[in-house]
């Protein structure tokens, strides 16, 4: 049981860290895409939406090619480490967060930015106001990013290596057990992973629903 908890803690650590970093990257990009009216932003928006569909194993392969000793970033010794896995999961979660942020902000009344500017808001004030207005979809973006990160197995396998006691996470452990034919253990791990996802999403959902109620009052 100790071993399961250790693996579970590692899954939570990697995916929560990745989600936090992906929020820092994805929300500004999504905001810029929602507000920008300049040439090129359409191409980037399409790229972000495509990023939501990239197979995690492809992200894993590209990150591994960069991080392997033979790769350009090999000297950083990030392959088969938790940090390497976090980098890969950031790349997986960030497009999702950027895409949902963009859609959430675009769903606000179109005249809102101009009205705020007319009231004298500078750009940072405008952006913060829009984020507050769009807090419900922004929390949805965080949950989608976290859900994608914690459930992915493709990049965790290639970049992490499923090293027992070091980089093994719940999903790679489940794949290993299926490979061995230990379906019972695999199902137990799956149930525990779902319980973790449920707990974290329960917290986020309760924040989101309180925010939604506040918006209506």
């Amino acid at each position, binding site marked *: 049981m100790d071993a399961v908890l250790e693996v579970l803690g590692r899954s939570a650590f990697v995916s929560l860290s990745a989600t936090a*970093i992906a929020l*820092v990257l994805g929300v500004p990009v999504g905001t810029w895409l929602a507000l920008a009216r300049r040439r090129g932003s359409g191409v980037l928006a399409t790229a972000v939406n495509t990023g939501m569909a990239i197979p995690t194993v492809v992200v894993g392969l590209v990150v591994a090619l960069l991080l*392997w000793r033979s790769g350009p970033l090999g000297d950083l010794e990030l392959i088969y*480490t938790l*940090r390497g896995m976090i980098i890969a999961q*950031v790349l997986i979660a960030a497009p999702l967060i950027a895409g949902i942020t963009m859609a959430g902000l675009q769903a606000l009344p179109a005249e809102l930015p101009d009205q705020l500017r007319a009231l004298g808001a500078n750009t940072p004030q405008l952006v913060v106001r829009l984020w507050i207005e769009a807090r419900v979809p922004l929390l949805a973006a965080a949950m989608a990013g976290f859900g994608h990160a914690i459930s992915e197995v493709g990049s965790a396998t290639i970049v992490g290596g499923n*090293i027992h*006691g070091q980089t093994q996470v719940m999903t790679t452990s489940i794949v290993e057990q299926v490979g061995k034919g230990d379906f019972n253990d695999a199902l137990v791990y799956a149930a525990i992973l779902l319980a973790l996802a449920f707990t974290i999403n329960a917290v986020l959902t309760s924040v989101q629903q309180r925010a939604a109620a506040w918006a209506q009052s």
Partner: protein
Amino acid sequence: MRRTATAVRTLLTALLMAACGGDDDSGQSKAGTDKGPMILATTTSTQDSGLLDDLVPRFQEDSGCSVKTIAVGSGEALELGEKGNADVLLVHSPEAEQEYMDSGHGVSRKAVMHNDFVVVGPADDPAGIKGGDSAAEAFTGIAKTEAPFASRADESGTNTKELSLWEAAGIEPKASWYIETGQGMGETLTITSQKQAYTLSDRGTFLAADNLDLDLLVEGGTDLLNPYHVIVVEGENVDRACAQEFLDWITSPKIQDEIAQFGVAEYGEPLFIPDAEG
């Protein structure tokens, strides 16, 4: 323009956080392991047997080298070694290993142990191969009756062995009864069981796997031997000291004795027979 600069700065900060902020997992390795990390690339069959979970922590204690064990197919393990992405290999694909050594990618190579392959299949045995001891004969029988056969098709040591057995039998297995799974031994055994097909498996994985509706049909032939070798990788970034130490350690009499005992308690027979001569 300023906004772009801010965005770039945010991006860099976040990447730095990812690079530096993460938990220092290299520090999680056992106390007293101050050398390494050494990357050991090995095959899924050794990992699935549980042997490495037994041996690797002991080696870390004995040598002070921290180890990262990556379990992949023999083909991929050799590929990792060729690019210098691993320090030491424990693999079972003798012909490919010889080629690997001949092209100068290895410093040294030594026999560690062997187990054997077995041909497994459905209990009703439509190809009538049960009780034989030659894999080539068994494969001929399977091809003749066109009974389904599952191949791993993943360039692993087992897959390489299987292909050489078809070649020895003079058969080119390209037909609808020949199923290519592209997966590891455990997954392939599950597919074989579900399809009531035949397959070639290493004995250890077959014994360790549960939930299989398959019988061991052919064993013991000289063409079914499965030898494992340890290879110290040649390359400028390679941690050769730890790798060489691992080679010496796993072929030492003490560890060879332990390999001979591994699995006896659980399966009533050893999973591996030691091969290093002193």
